[in-house]
């Protein structure tokens, strides 16, 4: 299995700083901004963005979404996903919500997240922020903020490492794509 590092720890943290700046520029100063990370690595990135935004935005309301129960492939995949915990700040009604995930691929996770979020209230606006957009969409979903965009091969996997779970920040490209990559999957 071939592993290529796309971004090392410092470069990944720089991507997060850039994402934070993009969000800070785009979201109105008085808006009720809520950051919602997608369990689990989206959580870590959301926490890092919240920390970066603290000087200008104060302490932001943040939440975490586990989309296991909203997947569209329940009963089709073999083993069940371990359901994680979902915590949403009390009121997201009329808030400006930014959903944060590590990698955007098919768009199915975000579809599930949008459905789940709707069960918690009617947000005023929902945007999507991802560390890496690797292409390969199967649904009409696009990010509002992306740290890095490129077209990965179908067999390749983009793997994001976060400090609190993996020890250090980083983005890796796993596999070479094409037939060999598909086989390795």
């Amino acid at each position, binding site marked *: 299995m071939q592993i290529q590092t796309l971004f090392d720890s410092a470069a990944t943290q720089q991507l997060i700083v850039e994402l934070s700046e993009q969000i800070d520029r785009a979201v109105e100063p008085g808006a009720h901004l809520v950051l919602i990370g997608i369990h689990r690595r989206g959580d870590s990135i959301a926490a890092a963005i919240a920390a970066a935004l603290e000087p200008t935005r104060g302490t932001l309301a943040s939440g975490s979404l*586990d989309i*296991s*129960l*909203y*997947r*569209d*492939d*329940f*009963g*089709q*995949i*073999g*083993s*069940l*996903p*371990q*359901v*994680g*915990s*979902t*915590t949403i700040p009390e009121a997201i009604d009329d808030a400006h919500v930014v959903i944060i995930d590590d990698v955007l*691929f*098919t*768009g*199915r*996770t975000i579809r*599930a997240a949008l*459905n*789940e979020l709707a*069960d*918690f*209230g009617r947000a005023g606006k929902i945007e999507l922020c991802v560390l890496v957009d690797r292409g390969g969409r199967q649904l009409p979903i696009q990010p509002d903020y992306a740290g890095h965009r490129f077209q990965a091969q179908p067999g390749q996997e983009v793997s994001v490492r976060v400090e609190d779970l993996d020890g250090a920040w980083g983005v890796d490209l796993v596999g070479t794509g094409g037939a060999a990559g*598909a086989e390795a*999957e």
Partner: protein
Amino acid sequence: MTAMGKDLELGKDLIGLEDLSREQILGILDTAEPFKEISERKIKKVPVLRGQTIVNLFFEPSTRTRISFEFAEKRLSADTVNISSSGSSVQKGETLVDTARNLEAMRIHMVVVRHGSSGAARFLADRIPSNVINAGDGQHAHPTQALLDLLTIRDRFGAIEGRRVCIVGDIKHSRVARSNVTGFLKCGAEVAVCGPRTLIPAGIEDLGVQVFGRVEEAIEWCDVLYVLRLQLERMQGGYVPSLREYNRVFGVTSRRLESAADDMIVLHPGPMNRGVEIDSDVADGPRSVILPQVTNGVAVRMAVLYLLAGGRPELAESAKGRMP
């Protein structure tokens, strides 16, 4: 995405905890944790079992268990049908298997069954392709009750292993006691029972279970006091002299609890007979976790439904790489 290990595959049915490993039991409890939060939401529903049809087939009266299963099913978006023996063809002499086969013919996915005969759930599970969940069969087992009790104890103490649990009351006629003894032992608790000798099954010591003849001793010994009612409907008479006498000798009263450890908790599976096996000031007192048990019941049943409905190991290989 983390895939669950093979250990967590529950297979087609949940009949009794004797069929499960310790890892599977703890895995169900872990799965139940995130389901607790769904019942606290404003919209208490997730779409995961959309399109699944579940039949609740109750041949014995039940309030808590039937409602709890129904809430669990509805909060997972399954379609549910309730059938009780009165008002169905069972009264006209239809057998259990024929009832179930007719339901199968209407294309159902799961059956939750409560029946007065021990072994009825297994009997059914062996004869129909749908998932079968035992919601209590005779004096045999009531696995989801034991699972919700284990979850409640784990919530309070952080772990079940090493805790001292004493079940007091009518052990002999109780499927709850059977399932709980199995569950407690598998999870590494020390287990004791207490009650009139007539209501303690012979040979229970062979399972590694201690027997207390006096409830005062049991209360001093345990971290968890699990109180059972007298199953008068299953008794042919002669087991206890009178309910009043039972209360005088084995009743769990606040005075008797004075000698208990500070963090000792009291559980009861319901329905309670206040003033017989448990006094009102205990049932409603600070040690009681009887209502948290009921809350946990919904989460545990959601976890069991989720795990049984989704476990399709044969598809695992072909589906690799299809994850979003």
